[in-house]
């Protein structure tokens, strides 16, 4: 797509950072992580499907070749365990009842 094809007016809409974007959703955070990621599996992973696909951007590559994962702002969508090709890298459950994402105008 050529960039000139895009509408780039200054006042088109307020640009928002990813933090602001995630800040529009309500998360009732439980102290216990509902998803955990096994760092050893990730270290050997070259494809890194989770990094680009997780809509909440929760999989962050570290400089030593690992993955830093934080469960707190998770939509509970399931994308990560579906795209990850490594058996056992992600252990995925729903948060405790009443916790996690709460949608309002969706």
């Amino acid at each position, binding site marked *: 797509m050529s960039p000139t*094809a895009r*509408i780039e007016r200054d006042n088109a809409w307020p640009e928002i950072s990813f933090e602001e974007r995630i800040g529009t959703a309500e998360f009732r955070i439980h102290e216990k992580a509902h998803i955990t990621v096994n760092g050893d599996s990730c270290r050997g992973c070259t494809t890194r499907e989770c990094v680009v696909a997780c809509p909440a951007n929760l999989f962050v590559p570290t400089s030593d070749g690992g993955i830093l994962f934080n469960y707190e702002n998770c939509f509970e969508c399931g*994308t990560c365990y579906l795209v990850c090709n490594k058996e056992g890298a992600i252990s995925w459950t*729903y948060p405790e009842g009443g916790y996690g994402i*709460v949608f309002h105008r969706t």
Partner: protein
Amino acid sequence: MTAPAHDFDADIIVVGAGPAGSCAAIAAARAGKSVVLVERGPFPGSKNMYGGVVYPRILDELIPSWWETMPVQRWVVKRSTMLLSDTGALNVDFRANAWGAPPYNGATAYRPDFDNWLANHAVEAGARLVCSTTVTGLLRDSTGRIQGVSTDRPDGDLRAPIVIACDGVNSFLAKESGLYPHTDASNFTLGVKETLALPKHVIDERFGVRDNQGVDIEILGGTSGVNGGGFIYTNLDTVALGVVLKLPKLAAQQKRPEQIIAELKRHPAVAPLIEGAEVKEYSAHVIPEAGLEMMPTMVADGMLVAGDAAALCLAAGIWLEGVNFAMASGMYAGQAAAEAITKNDVSSRGLSGYTDRLEKTFVLRDHKKLRKVPHLVLSDRVQHKYPAFVAGVVERVFRVDNPHPKPGVRRIVREERKKAGIGLLDLLRDGWTGMRGFG
């Protein structure tokens, strides 16, 4: 209501208070059975997002005059399909103001409102709704027969001879019961959307509607080369704009979902509709896209699977319907479960009234009729070549290039087809598949 047999807490446990679960609970409770409806969110609908249009006619049976109380944003009177090339857009619009009056056709609604409303009907019908409770597994007796579910509440086991799994696209119950062995990413798409705030009169003007009239726009192309599609739906004072993205394709490239949305928003055919709008809520959810190809076995001894948990969502390009399929399959599951309790036969044979109903109604008939469409719509040619081809043809048909005379349409089609790199045979084959699939 009859008391459940011996040490059971209920006749039927329904897991998940989405559209499937609430309709299952309404149907079973109306048939006089005792029902517990378990939901992990703090209230029904709190975990649920979708594009934004429900087609509630199936509710005629369960909630007559549903339109009088249903929490509606707008009644859809205009449906558009937008085909986007890099710079152009082909719009096909259909308007029917009659859809804005009873018995209506589709309505935009927020799921936290809609699902909550539907679950309240289950409670009124006599079901017990238990929120903030996550079901963690199936209970079985020593012979392996299903006896209910375990939950994350202290002493949270809930016992019943029948469990109806309406726990949505990730259904861990269907997986645990062995009914649903696959988690092949290519059967799923990720949906992400922005709820964008705009004053009501601005939405009315930009979309050409009045009062509580609404618009439904499905988009093909415009997803930055990732197979999928987009949508724009009008609510009263917000616009829902989002994309659905085929998981393996999304994972195999570099653009993140919110960047793909940002590009769609800047497309010259989209930007003027939403200019100045502020993001009120960002959300994401997965869709089972592969239709018939991915459907699990839906009946086992003591268990039924309905809605997205059974992959009953219809995602076929110009159609994105899941809520109506969930409501219908849930209702049929509830009816069949009630019959099985009455007959005192909860085996898969006793529960087969469920699949009989699915086969006889639109639920499986639509899926069978459109079985080839999801694949076709998400195929590389349809996704990456046809939008530019069609937009190119239309652009040249409408371009007045004086002093040159108008070229013949046949020549334009041939030239644009070649430019887009589409073989004639492929075009004919896809056209044939499409005609048979949609026909």
